[in-house]
């Protein structure tokens, strides 16, 4: 942490200040680090501690004591844990993939000049700005309601009667609501990628006689891959702990049909004020999320490499 210049220094910074006497302004960065430690890391360490103990806030008469892995055992034997993990993966995977594809389609549609483009873009990004609780309320009550909803009404015009998505296929319902919410985000990130495609490369491809399709496949798509990576990673990061949409739209139900890990903490542990059990589940959740993110980074890295070969 002193005046030694290393390769960790970002580009451009390398030459600057190298020869001068340089003191690291630790005071500038320390407050943020201490604050983050106190509010996020310390509680996490306590989560580990609590998960190994028995403690029920509603039962002050029971002793608080070490129980080893008892909390984890009862979670695993319960069976809901596996269901919650599966639901988390299905939900996150489906929403990320669908909203990415839809977002790509919309980004391509909006990336050309046409009258009213600004308004179209504004309307398209709106779902992203809507409070998820409100988004879920509107979808559940006014869009998907089996009797008064707009979607069943529209479908009935095509001869499809008695659609009650949230009752018949609750997972599809909550995925649909979240895709609506997340497509604008994917679109915006991909639009940023599209608008930075190198015109001269496209020009060169055209002169070489590339078709529109080849242009897209060999020039645009490889360029977009780094933007898509960011979109997928950020999307996954924010969608894994989804809670609000499920809380409003289905309450995690029926049964455990739409209960993901985050909701399971609320449902089977927090609602009973069982500190030990909910801590254990919280920890499993954290490890699970980290594992998913790291695997994703790896897998995407590999696809990425192949994209460059294609190029």
């Amino acid at each position, binding site marked *: 942490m002193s005046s030694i210049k290393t390769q*960790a220094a*970002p580009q451009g*910074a390398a030459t600057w200040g190298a020869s001068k006497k340089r003191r*690291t302004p630790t005071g*500038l*960065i320390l407050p*943020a*680090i201490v*604050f*983050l430690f106190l*509010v*996020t890391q*310390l*509680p*996490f360490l306590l*989560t580990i501690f*609590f998960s190994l103990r028995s403690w029920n806030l509603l039962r002050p008469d029971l002793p608080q004591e070490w129980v080893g892995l008892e909390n984890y055992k009862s979670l695993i034997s319960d069976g809901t844990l596996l269901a919650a993990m599966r639901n988390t993966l299905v939900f996150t995977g489906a929403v990320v993939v669908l909203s990415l594809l839809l977002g790509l389609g*919309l980004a391509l*549609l909006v990336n*050309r000049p*046409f009258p009213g483009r600004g308004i179209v873009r*504004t*309307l*398209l*990004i*709106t779902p*992203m*700005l*809507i*409070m*998820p*609780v*409100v988004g879920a*309320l*509107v979808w559940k*009550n006014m*869009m998907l309601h089996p009797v*008064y*909803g*707009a979607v069943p009404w529209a479908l009935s015009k095509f001869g499809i009667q008695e659609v009650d998505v949230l009752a018949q296929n609750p997972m599809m319902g909550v995925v649909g609501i979240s895709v*609506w919410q997340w497509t604008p985000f994917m679109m*915006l*990130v991909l639009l*940023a990628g599209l608008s930075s495609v190198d015109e001269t490369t496209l020009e060169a491809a055209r002169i070489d006689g590339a078709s529109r399709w080849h242009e897209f496949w060999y020039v645009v798509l490889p360029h977009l891959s780094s*933007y898509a990576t*960011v979109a997928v990673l950020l999307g996954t*990061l924010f969608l894994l*702990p989804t809670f*609000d949409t499920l*809380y*409003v739209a289905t309450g995690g139900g029926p049964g455990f049909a739409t209960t993901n*890990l*985050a909701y399971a*903490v*609320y449902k089977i542990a*927090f609602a009973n004020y069982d500190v030990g059990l909910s801590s254990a589940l*919280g*920890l499993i959740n954290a490890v699970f*999320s*980290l594992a998913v993110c790291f695997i994703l980074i790896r897998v995407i890295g590999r696809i990425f490499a192949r994209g460059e070969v294609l190029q």
Partner: protein
Amino acid sequence: MKRLRSSVPTLLAYACALIFFFPVLLLLLTGFKTEAQAYSMPPSLLFTPTLENFARAFEQNYYLYYLSNSIIVVGVSTLLAFALSIPAAFSLAFYPTRRSKDVIFWVLSTRFMPPVGVVVPLYAIFLKISLLDTRTGLILIYTAFSIPLMVLIMRAYYLDLPREIVEAAQVDGASLWRVFFSIAVPLSGPAIASAGLLSLIFVWNEFFFALMLTDTNAPTLPLFMSQSQTSKGLFWANMSASATMAVLPVVVLGWFAQRYLTRGFTMGAVK
């Protein structure tokens, strides 16, 4: 024929915009209807608008109380997060050390933590030190969740600034604090707009911590909306009016600051 073919994507774009905006449009319109009109299908587009639902939302539902909580929590946590993030980002960008990369990764990793991984101990700690169901408690948490993205965006922005500006000031003998306050901070406008906008949207809409850690003393607008489901889930017009008022500030802000939104997502992240 050719003109027809080229107008297909445009028409498709219009159709998509309409489909994606339709639920919001329905929400906006329903707030101005009577309850009877609200339930008519297909939704009536021609009706005499009434402000009754908005008036009732103000009277009965303590909307202003939730709103004031939201504004205080969003405002203070965003300011606090900036106060901690800007110096950190400045230091990481202009005074990198061999640990900088680790620090950046660590800061980011705190954002990888799912809220349920920390909420139980936070509940227990807040209970102990009387921060449960207070705005201060929420502010502390939201600040911590805003910092990583802010540091990332601000640092990326500082890395793009011409080094000569800071260098020249240093040669002139300006102190660290002078460089920071009279050069870095005044130049940070666009990055502050992007980072602030994202953090503001996140905090305004955050529901999980608000539900877990507040009750009657510090509830924010998302709680107001989730409670409206049980108390007046069947009163669509009333619910729509409250919901419209709950989402409008952030929606309008997002509409007018679109370019900062995009820049926020891609800055930092794509680097």
